[in-house]
C-alpha cells in the first residue's frame, strides 16, 4: 500500500513532462526496450490495419454505387442526397431517436433510484444487486427478445394481467403504435449496468456531508439535491453518454421482434436494421456505407450536445 502511494505521484509526473535528464534515460533504459514495445504491439498494429483501411474505404464507398458483384462506380454525392429523400431513412431515424430519447432517461432514472435505495446500510445488498443486474446481461440476447414477443403477444401475460383490471390490452407487438414501446420497456428493464456504476459512485460521497446537512436540518430531498446530485453528476453524465451511444446503435431487438423486417409499418425499423437491410438484403453497399457515415455524424452530434450541455449541470470538484 505504501509503495503504491509513493509510486502514484511519481508516475504521474513522469507522464506529464519529459524526464529531467533525457540523455541518461536514453542510455540506461530506452535503448534495449525500444523494439520490445513494437513487438508487443504487433497484433494491435495488424488490428489497426483492419480498422483504418476499412474506415477510409467506407468513406470512399459512400460515394459509389456498389452491389458486391460489379466494381464500385463513382456517383459523387448522390447517396448522401438520397439519404435525405428516402422515407425509410426518415422513418428509421424517427424510430431510433424516439427509442433513445425515451428509454435512456427512463433507464437512468430507474438506475439512480434503485442505486439510492440500495445505498443505505442494507441487508442482502449482494442479492438485490445481483437480481437487478442480471437482466442487463441477458437483455441483448435473442432469447429475451423472443420472450418479450410472447409476453406482449395478443394473448400474452401482459394482456392477461391488464384483463384482471378490465383493460383490453392492445396487440402490442403487431400494432404499429405500441411495438416500439415493447422494446423501450425491454431497454428500461436492463438498467442494471448503470445502476452498478451509480452504486459505486454513491459510495464515494463522504458521509460527513450528510451528517453536517442533517445537523443543519436539511430534508432528505434537500440533501439529495444539494449534495448527492452535484457530486455524482459526472457519473450521470458518463452513463448518459454511454447509454446514448449504445441505444443509437440498437439492432438485435428490432431485428428479432420484427423478424428482420422492421415492421409493423416500420415501427421498429431501427437505423442499423435499415442499414443492414440496404447492405445485406438489397446489396446497396455504397448506399449503406453512406448511411453508416450519417450515423457516425449523428452519434458525434449527440455526444457533442451532451458534452456542451454538461457545462450547465455537471459539477466537477476542482
Amino acid at each position, binding site marked *: 500500500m505504501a509503495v503504491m502511494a509513493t509510486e502514484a505521484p511519481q508516475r504521474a509526473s513522469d507522464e506529464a513532462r519529459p524526464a529531467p535528464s533525457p540523455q541518461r534515460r536514453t542510455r540506461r533504459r530506452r535503448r534495449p526496450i525500444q523494439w520490445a514495445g513494437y513487438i508487443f504491439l504487433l497484433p494491435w498494429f495488424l488490428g489497426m490495419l483492419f480498422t483504418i483501411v476499412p474506415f477510409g474505404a467506407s468513406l470512399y464507398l459512400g460515394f459509389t454505387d456498389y452491389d458486391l458483384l460489379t466494381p464500385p462506380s463513382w456517383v459523387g454525392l448522390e447517396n448522401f442526397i438520397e439519404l435525405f429523400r428516402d422515407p425509410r431513412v426518415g422513418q428509421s431515424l424517427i424510430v431510433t431517436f424516439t427509442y433513445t430519447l425515451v428509454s435512456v432517461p427512463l433507464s437512468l432514472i430507474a438506475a439512480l433510484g434503485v442505486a439510492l435505495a440500495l445505498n443505505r446500510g442494507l441487508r442482502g445488498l449482494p442479492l438485490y444487486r445481483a437480481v437487478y443486474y442480471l437482466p442487463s446481461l441477458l437483455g441483448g440476447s*435473442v432469447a429475451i427478445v423472443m420472450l418479450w414477443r410472447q409476453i406482449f403477444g395478443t394473448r400474452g401475460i401482459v394482456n392477461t394481467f391488464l384483463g384482471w383490471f378490465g383493460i383490453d390490452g392492445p396487440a402490442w407487438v403487431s400494432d404499429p403504435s405500441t411495438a416500439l414501446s415493447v422494446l423501450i420497456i425491454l431497454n428500461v428493464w436492463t438498467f442494471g*449496468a448503470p445502476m452498478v456504476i451509480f452504486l459505486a459512485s454513491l459510495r464515494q460521497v463522504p458521509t460527513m456531508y450528510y451528517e453536517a446537512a442533517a445537523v443543519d436540518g436539511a430534508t432528505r430531498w434537500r440533501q439529495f439535491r444539494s449534495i448527492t446530485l452535484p457530486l455524482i453528476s459526472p457519473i450521470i453524465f458518463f452513463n448518459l453518454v454511454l447509454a446514448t451511444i449504445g441505444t443509437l446503435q440498437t439492432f438485435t431487438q428490432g431485428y428479432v421482434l420484427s423478424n428482420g423486417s422492421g415492421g409493423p409499418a416500420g415501427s421498429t425499423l431501427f437505423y442499423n436494421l435499415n442499414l443492414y437491410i440496404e447492405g445485406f438484403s438489397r446489396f446497396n*453497399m455504397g448506399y449503406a*456505407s453512406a448511411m453508416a457515415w450519417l450515423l457516425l455524424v449523428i452519434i458525434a452530434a449527440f455526444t457533442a450536445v451532451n458534452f456542451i450541455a454538461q457545462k450547465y449541470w455537471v459539477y466537477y470538484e476542482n
Partner: protein
Amino acid sequence: MAIPTTTATPTAARALTRRQRSRRDSGDLDPGPVDAQDTAQRRFLRHVILCGVALLMMYPLLWMLSSSVKPDANIFTEQGLWPSEWRFENYADGWNSLQHPFGHYIVNSAIVVSLSIVGTVVSSALAAYAFARLEFPGRRFFFGLALITLMLPGHVLLIPQYIIFSELGWLNTYLPLVVPNFLASNAFFIFLMVQFMRALPKELDDAARIDGCGPFRIFFQIIAPLCVPAFATTAIFTFISTWNEFFSPLIYITDPNLYTVPLALRQFMDAEGQSAWGPMFAMSVVSLLPIVAFFIMGQKYLVKGIATTGLK
C-alpha cells in the same frame, strides 16, 4: 471507516466487527453507510419496495422458466407460475427440433467464444503492457489512436470489413468472428488492462531488470500473473458479449451447420406456425444458462469491472 472503540457500546462494536468480518469474507462491497435517520419502519418499507421491484424484474425470467416445462396449451391460459402439469419433454423436443441437436450449436458457440476469449486476453494484454510499461517512440500517439477507436461505431467499418473477409474467402467460417479478437480489436479491454498495470509498483520491473530479465520475461513471469483479475474481467465480458452476439454471425454465417446459439434459437420463430412454445422456451432457457452460470461465478469481478470502468 474508523471503528469506534471507547464511545461505542459493546453491542454496537460487535455488530460492526461482525459486519466487517462478513464483508471481508464475502470479498464484496460494503453494505453502504448506515443512516442515523433510518428508522426500523423505513428500513422495512424499503425492503418491501425493493423486493417488489426485484420480483417485477425477475418475473419475465421466471415466466420463461415455468413456460419451458408447461404443455403448450397451458402457457398462455394458466396464470400461476407453478405449472399444474409438468412437461419436461419440452427440453428433449426443443433439443431435437432444429436441423441439428441443440448441442451442435452450443459446441459451435463454444468454439467461437473460447477462441475469442483467448485472443482478446492475450492480444490486449500484450498491447496494454507496451502502453503501460514500455518506452518507445510514438507510444502516446498510438495509445491515443487506440482510445479514438473506442468511439468509432462498428457499423462504419462493417461493409469494408465484410468485403475484405469475403475477398479472403472467410465467409461461412469462424475466422471473421475470431481473428479480430486476436488483433486486440476492442480497445476497451486494452484500456482496462493499462489502468490495472499502471497501478502495479514499477519497482517490480526495475528489480527484475537489474536481475537481468528482458521485457518478455518481465511480462510473462511478473506482470501477467499479477494481472489475473483484469484478465478474468476481460474473459467474462468477452464470454457474455460473444455468447449473445447476433449481428456478426448473422452476416458472416449462412450455412446452418455453422450457426451459433443465437442464430439457431431464432429459427424457432421462423417455424412459428407449428407454435411449439414450450420447446422454444426450453431452448431459450438452455441458451441463457451459461451466462447465468458465468454471472454467478464471476459476480465479484463483473461488478468490479463495471463499477470501475462502466461497460454494458
